[in-house]
């Protein structure tokens, strides 16, 4: 196999001492970037891109992709410790990660999250190594209708998941759609719902909403409840890692499913965020412990983290082979490629072997180095929870404000973040779930865009969503997911056993 030979050549490039140092530096920078909410992988890579201009393209991409891995790892830390997702795809991690931290199991949650990230990424890299060309042609089959069906499936697998009353879930989701619609309408080039305010041109950025709703809202709640973290101080030693590892192999089926979901979403390219939500939703449906989801179930951390990382890694493949970035960070990396005079596209694999296989080898090594770096820091991260709330709260507030500002370099966003914080506080007090709103803001306008693109192409016929095997299958899966509670109830009634009240959809 020529490719395997190339891969080993790639390893030999990556394992030069200089490149290993770059890797560690990249991972550390990436973790910092990922921890700061709002800064995000894309911004982080963009800021650090100039550092790499003087390096060789291979060294540069090693460092930048390690920043990317670091950011993917780092996003989970604040989600679990403070209920503040550092990255969009970490939102689903908060659902169970934060309750675990509150129960004094922050170490377990962090270990599970990091390990899952690693497994997801490794699975995706192996897939890239073995089937890259196949996968690239699969990605080509995704037109607007297919992409919409993927979003549809993401929404459907998430509806009816929350403990809150279904009408509150719907209300929250609809509010999210409305907020997501503000700004420029991509399809007609018209401004919507800006009421003549120039500051609303950009719409409501998902990150601002998340930082406010989760971060600020959480701090307000904690303040009300007596200025102390509800979390018990976590045990601080590395045994936690070993003990958690002993448990993880039990969930191999969950891992496999989450990896597959993640790879698929990364390639299609819907991205890591829908992957994490979809994986969480499906895990909750299927798991025996489905009822415990949201209360600190370790499976609720594994599912979204594995899928997010598989997706984040797989997203690099369409970037290399088609020149289409599967994520915002991949878009910045793409810009980097062009600056180094490399042309992403179908020929990159044949024309720039050193580079491509160096990149793939760095995916393997970067993830291993990343896992070691973050795991050794688990006790350190968990220890943060021992700092008194009165000290840490102002720091979090400042970090949130910086994060909100960096998204668009706009002071108005900081104000918006505070407004969202108050909204989040009241929604929590009145038991309106936040997650559906967040999901609607982040995926609403993309789903709308591909929906309208499909209808434009089909002259308004809805038949386009069932026009070929691929799109019909995904749509049908979505419908099944949507009506699953009813189907389940129907099935159990057929069997004659009425097993208690069914959950509403």
């Amino acid at each position, binding site marked *: 196999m020529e490719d395997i030979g190339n891969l080993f050549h790639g390893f030999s490039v990556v394992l030069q001492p200089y490149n290993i140092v770059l890797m560690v530096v990249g991972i550390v920078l990436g973790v910092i970037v990922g921890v700061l909410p709002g800064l995000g992988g894309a911004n982080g890579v963009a800021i650090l891109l100039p550092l790499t201009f003087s390096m060789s393209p291979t060294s540069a991409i090693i460092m930048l992709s390690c920043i990317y891995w670091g950011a993917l790892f780092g996003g989970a830390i604040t989600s679990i410790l403070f209920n503040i997702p550092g990255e969009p795809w970490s939102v689903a991690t908060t659902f169970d990660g934060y309750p675990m931290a509150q129960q004094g199991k922050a170490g377990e949650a962090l270990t599970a999250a990091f390990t899952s990230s690693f497994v997801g990424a490794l699975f995706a890299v192996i897939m890239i190594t073995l089937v890259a060309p196949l996968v690239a042609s699969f990605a080509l089959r995704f*037109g607007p209708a297919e992409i919409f069906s993927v979003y549809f499936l993401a929404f459907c697998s998430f509806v009816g998941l929350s403990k809150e009353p279904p009408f509150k879930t719907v209300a929250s989701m609809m509010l999210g759609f409305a907020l997501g619609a503000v700004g420029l309408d991509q399809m*007609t080039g018209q401004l919507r719902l800006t009421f003549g305010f120039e500051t609303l*041109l950009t719409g409501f950025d998902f990150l601002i909403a998340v930082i406010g709703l989760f971060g600020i809202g959480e701090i307000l709640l904690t303040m009300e409840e007596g200025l102390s973290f509800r979390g018990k101080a976590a045990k601080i030693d590395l045994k936690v890692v070993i003990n958690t590892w002993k448990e993880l192999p039990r969930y191999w089926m969950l891992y496999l499913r989450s990896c597959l979901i993640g790879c698929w979403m990364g390639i299609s390219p819907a991205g890591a965020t829908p992957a994490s939500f979809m994986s969480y939703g499906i895990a909750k449906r299927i798991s025996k412990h489905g009822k415990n989801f949201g209360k600190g179930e370790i499976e609720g951390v594994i599912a979204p983290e594995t899928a997010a990382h598989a997706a984040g890694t797989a997203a690099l493949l369409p970037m290399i082979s088609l*020149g289409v970035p599967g994520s915002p960070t991949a878009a910045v990396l*793409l810009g980097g490629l062009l600056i180094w005079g490399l042309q992403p596209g179908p020929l990159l694999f044949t024309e720039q072997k050193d580079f491509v296989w160096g990149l793939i080898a760095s995916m393997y090594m970067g993830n291993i180095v990343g896992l070691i770096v973050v795991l050794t820091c688990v006790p350190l991260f968990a220890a943060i929870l021992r700092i008194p709330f009165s000290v840490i709260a102002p720091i979090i507030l400042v970090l949130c404000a910086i994060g909100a500002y960096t998204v668009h370099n706009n002071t108005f966003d900081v104000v918006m973040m505070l407004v969202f914080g108050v909204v989040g506080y009241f929604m929590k007090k009145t038991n309106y779930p936040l997650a559906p709103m967040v999901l609607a803001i982040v995926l609403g306008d993309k789903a709308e865009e591909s929906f309208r*693109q499909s209808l*434009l192409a089909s002259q308004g016929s809805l038949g386009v969503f069932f026009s070929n095997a691929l799109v019909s299958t995904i749509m049908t899966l979505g419908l099944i997911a949507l009506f699953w509670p009813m189907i389940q109830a129907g099935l159990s009634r057929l069997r004659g056993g009425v097993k208690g009240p069914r959950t509403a959809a």
Partner: protein
Amino acid sequence: MSATSKVLTFGVAACVGGAFALSIAPAKAWEPTHPIEIIVPAGTGGGADQMARTMQGIITKHNLSKQSVVVINKSGGAGGEGFLDVKNSKGNAHKLIITLSNLFTTPLATGIPFSWKDMTPVAMMALDEFVLWTNAEKPYKNVKDYVAAVKAAPDNTFKMGGTGSKQEDQIITVALEKATGKKMTYIPYKGGGEVAVQLVGNHVDSTVNNPIEAVAHWRAGKLNALCVFDSKKLDYQEKIAGDKAWGDIPTCKSEGLDVEYLMLRGFFMAPGVKPDEVAYYVDMFKKVRETPEWKDLMKNGAFNTTFMVGDEYAKWVASAEKLHEGLMKEAGFLAKTN
């Protein structure tokens, strides 16, 4: 200070900033005192973004400025966010904005209040070309067959993919409709790279991608380049797609499609900046143009390398604005509030 040569060239500029000249020695050109921001009124990874980031790399690598350069994307409201930011930074000599056609189309289509006259023109770096692309599997391999296929299809069934709505790609599409007398369906996507892939995947029938957005697929034999929307053939003779060079693509006009369109890749600064501040950047851009990295970028993207500064540039922009106003009015793209 390595500024003596600049002072010779731009002595006039220094005199205009007279009040300045009193406090500082007379022979001292302006230099930036803190990091320079380049605003990109478009998303990451697009043509303008690539150019800005390449320049950032060139300026850093060749030490063309004592201050670092920061690239910031402000893409909200079809770029309106970025333009308003510059418009509202009166007198700020550390802020540049790179333009694409949304300099003209965004205010016309959305009514967002700005115009190029609210800013200070610095320099035209290049003009971006547009090429008519089709999927290589399709039976039409030249403009004549293409036009025949468009005409043969029922109204609105021929699909044209493009970037954004009521922007350059759709303007060209409307012009093509006029030239062929047939209505197509225009499907807007977020970025040029995505549009090219949709064409490779056969989800649209043709596109008018910039060369740099589609070149990888052209070279892989997935796309055909039918014609270029310029008055003359492209300047690049190197064989890059099999036996074809950029220079081999015929002009659309010569093939009977009388449509021409070029897109500005140029720089503006905030209003109210001093002439010697503008002169500093003009000088820096001239040095950027001499670097091998810049020449590579021009070659990869088959750019038209016209360079303009000062009045000549302002005049070009003014006439381009008129052109867009006419085209957009004809297409019915003007905002209702205008």
